[in-house]
Each structure stands twice: as structure tokens, then as C-alpha cells.
């Protein structure tokens, strides 16, 4: 896998193509025709050509097309290739939830999926949910309720919670739903069970539940 190495003048996303130089590998642009193609890189891996593939997806509303080593996870592409570091790497084994992103409307662990498997997918990361000037309601609620301490799990918690509330709306039951048929009420028990794939080592759980409940409109 290509190690992360900053380009000489530092990385900056421009409206046009961005070339990421990596020592020992030639770099060429493959797409530059549309304004919405933000970062396009081709890593020539001449020594082992079949072990890389081309993939294009919509990330936070913009189209990206890139050649990737088959082995690279979606998480590592987000962080190391596209430098969207809001999505965190915790355990890298699908156990902590820090890398949770929303793909095709569903929350998944970005560490347990290959980038190359996301051809044509629409992906939303924490950067695509809100901005400092225009927070997503759940981001605002996490701030209001102090739903974190160190903040490392927070992007994953928020992405997970956004998609979890959609699952609730869609009528997906949970392990703690007493009635499988009826739509689950938004209770603390439901929120805790449905968020169990997101670990907070600081233990901010009660405040996280408060933040989510405020947005979900449920009862304590």
C-alpha cells in the first residue's frame, strides 16, 4: 500500500484536479473534464498492475474517480488519499465504530470495506453532514449536550446516529423492541441498543443518548 506522504506544497483541495505526488510512483491525471471532479490521481503501480483497480463514487455530493490498490479500505482512501480525516480509525476491525460512514443511506464500518467495492456508490462522511457554520442538527445536539470528551469517536457516533434514526423511521426493529411488528418507540433503551456498534472510551454515553433523543423527539 502507498504510504501517506504529503506533497511538497502541502495538500489543498482545489476546484480542479489535484495531483498527489508520492515518492517512487508516477502520477497522471485521468479525469479533468467536469468541475465536480475534485481530486483525481492515478498511482502507477507498474510492478504489479493487476492489483489495482479504477473506482468512481460520489463523496459528499462530489464525484471522485481514482485508481486504488485493491487492498485499500474505504477508510484509508478517505483519510490517506482524499485527506478527509473526520472519519476516524479506531480499531480497524469493525469493533469500535469510529470509522462509521453512510453509504447509499446506510451506516457501515469504512474499515471493513474495500474502496474498490464502492463503484457508483453515494458516500457521506462527517464532512458532508454539516460545516462549522451550518451544523447538522445532530452535530449541534452533541455540542449542546456535551456528547463527548476527547471527541475521537464523535464523527462515527454522529454518522451512525443519523443513519440509525432513518432505520427507526423505516420501521427496522431492534434486539430490545418488545414487539417485532410495531414501530419501535424512541426510548433510551432503543437508542443504546441501536448505537452499540459505536464505542466511547471516555464513557460519554449518557450525554450521547441525550443528544440523540433530543433530535429523535423521544421520551427518556
Amino acid at each position, binding site marked *: 500500500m502507498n504510504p501517506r506522504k504529503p506533497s511538497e506544497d502541502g495538500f489543498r483541495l482545489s476546484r480542479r484536479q489535484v495531483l498527489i505526488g508520492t515518492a517512487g510512483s508516477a502520477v497522471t491525471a485521468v479525469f479533468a473534464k467536469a468541475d465536480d471532479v475534485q481530486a483525481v490521481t492515478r498511482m502507477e503501480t507498474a510492478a504489479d498492475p*493487476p*492489483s489495482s483497480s479504477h473506482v468512481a463514487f460520489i463523496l459528499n455530493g462530489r464525484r471522485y474517480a481514482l485508481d486504488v490498490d*485493491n487492498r485499500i*479500505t474505504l477508510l484509508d482512501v478517505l483519510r490517506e488519499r482524499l485527506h478527509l480525516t473526520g472519519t476516524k480509525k479506531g480499531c480497524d476491525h*469493525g469493533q469500535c465504530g469510529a470509522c462509521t460512514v453512510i453509504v447509499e443511506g446506510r451506516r457501515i464500518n469504512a474499515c471493513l470495506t474495500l474502496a474498490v467495492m464502492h463503484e457508483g456508490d453515494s458516500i457521506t462522511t462527517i464532512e458532508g453532514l454539516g460545516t462549522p457554520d451550518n451544523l447538522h442538527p445532530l452535530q449541534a445536539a452533541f455540542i449542546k449536550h456535551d456528547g463527548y470528551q476527547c471527541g475521537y469517536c464523535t464523527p462515527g457516533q454522529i454518522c451512525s446516529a443519523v443513519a440509525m434514526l432513518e432505520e427507526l423511521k423505516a*420501521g427496522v*426493529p*431492534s434486539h430490545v423492541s418488545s414487539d417485532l411488528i410495531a414501530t419501535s418507540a424512541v426510548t433510551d433503551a432503543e437508542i443504546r441498543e441501536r448505537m452499540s456498534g*459505536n464505542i466511547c472510551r471516555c464513557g460519554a454515553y449518557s450525554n450521547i443518548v441525550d443528544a440523540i433523543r433530543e433530535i429523535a423527539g423521544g421520551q427518556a
Partner: protein
Amino acid sequence: MKSFTYERVTSAQKAVNAAASTPGARFIAGGTNLLDLMKLEIETPQHLIDVNGLEFDKITMTEDGGLRIGALVRNTDLAAAPQVRRDYAVLSRALLAGASGQLRNKATTAGNLLQRTRCAYFYDTNQPCNKRRPGAGCAAIGGASRQHAIVGGSNACIASHPSDMAVAMRALGAMVETLHSNGQVRTIPLNDLYRAPGDTPHIENTLDTAELITAVILPKPVGGKHIYYKVRDRASYAFALVSVAAIVQPDQTGQVALGGVAYKPWRSEEAEVYLPDGANAITMHLLADAHPTAQNAFKIKLAERAIGLALSNASS
């Protein structure tokens, strides 16, 4: 992670043909277990065949009133499907008791069946493991074996199968439908999908490398009370120490399968005759051949009590 080549396939026949013609090929769907093992280089496929584009993502009725669950139906969708919640509630319950919301969104029906054990010695490449490296020995036997199998194991391996979904499917009498590169379609009882570890614990199922699971077939609904009771170390997001899938009729007859105790969901149709006699009677027959370690002998009593609770919930 070892390097590999990758292809997306657009038909099941292309998938099995690729598997037949490419050395070291593996199918990948959700990938949540395979990729995890590839990172640790426990799995080292040379070629990945991405089957996510195949149209096995539907749940349909069979001619005799049963259910045909496409191999690619995600665990979340299967658990939430109205006909599953209504007629096969034990399956919904089992799925919802497993993994996390994120993993259930990715994990597929076939992948869930074929997921590998979470034995800590299988995962720790510094430890001997016959499943990972045939002939290396088993560190679990004589090691920390609290989570491990108590029945069906061998002197080579006492790993347990981690699935909850498979336990419910076994109680429901599920069949697994496959396609082989030679064009053969076969339907295998779920019980016959899994191979006992014996001297070859690295061979876990009866599928050929050029064979792809295309669907799981459930017989028509049998009614009754559906219970899935899972005992684990955390309230959520943990593998079972013992789990019970039970379908109980008003006359106390029914089906019972155990999870967390063997290399496969553990059910015995002969033992089920004793179901009306209560938890102790059926457990004695179901686990008559149990050979636990000192650390997991508690699972026999735990299984009896879990079955007892399931039966009492079913009659309340």
C-alpha cells in the same frame, strides 16, 4: 494484507466460472469477516470475485408457501422483512441479537452462514491453530476455552460457530441452494453445510471452491411461539456463550437449536421428542455427547437454563 486481483461479476455463472478457473479465488459480498481476516493475513486470497452486483438480494415466496432468501439479502433487511417478522420471528430475533447496526447493514445471508470462528487462537497468528495451519496444534484445548464448543469438537479443534442467524435457520429447517461451475444447482440441508472438525478443522463446509450459495430456502411457516434467547458477556454486540432458538407449539412440541456450543448450530430431531418433558430432559439428550473443557463445562447447565427460560417464555 497480501496482494490480490479483483473483479466484479455480473452473473452467477460468471462468478462460479471465475472461481473454477482462478487459483486462490474467493467470493466477497459484505466482506466484514473476510476482510478482517485478510488484514491479519489469516485469509490470503489471490483473487477476489465481488458478487455484490448479482440479483440475489430479494426475498420471495416459494411455491409451497415457504420463503426464498437471496444470498445477498443483508442481515438488516432480512430481520426487518415484514414476512420474516410475522412468520419467522425467531429469525428476526436471532439476526437482531447479532453484531452491530453497521455490520448488519453489510453482512449478507450467505456470508453470515460461512463466517469463520472467533476463537481467539484462530485470530492470534502467534498461537498454534489447526484451523489456520493444519497440523500446528490447538492452543484452545488447555487454553482459555470459556467461549468454545462443548459438543461436536475433536482433539484438533474446539472452535464454535459464531452465527446467531444460522441457529434460527437450523431450527426453522432451512435449506441452502448453491450453483456450481458445472451448472449443477443443489439444495443442501443447512445441517449438512457444516463439516465436523475431526482431523481437518481447516475444512469447514461441504461446498466446492467453484460453488456459490445463491439462496436460503425456509419451509412454509409452522406457527407457534418463536423465541431467540442469547446469553453473552455484554448486553449487546457480543458473541453468544449459549443461545437458544426455539419454536414451541401450544402442545409443547417444537424445534430447538443451540448456538455457541458447537462448530455448527446444534439441533437433534431425536432430542426434540423430549421437549414436552422440559428443559432438563431435552438438554440431556441434546448434549448427551458433550465433551466440555474445565472452563466451559458451565455451558451445559447454562444451555439447560436458557432452554428452560425459552420454554417458559413460550408458554406465558
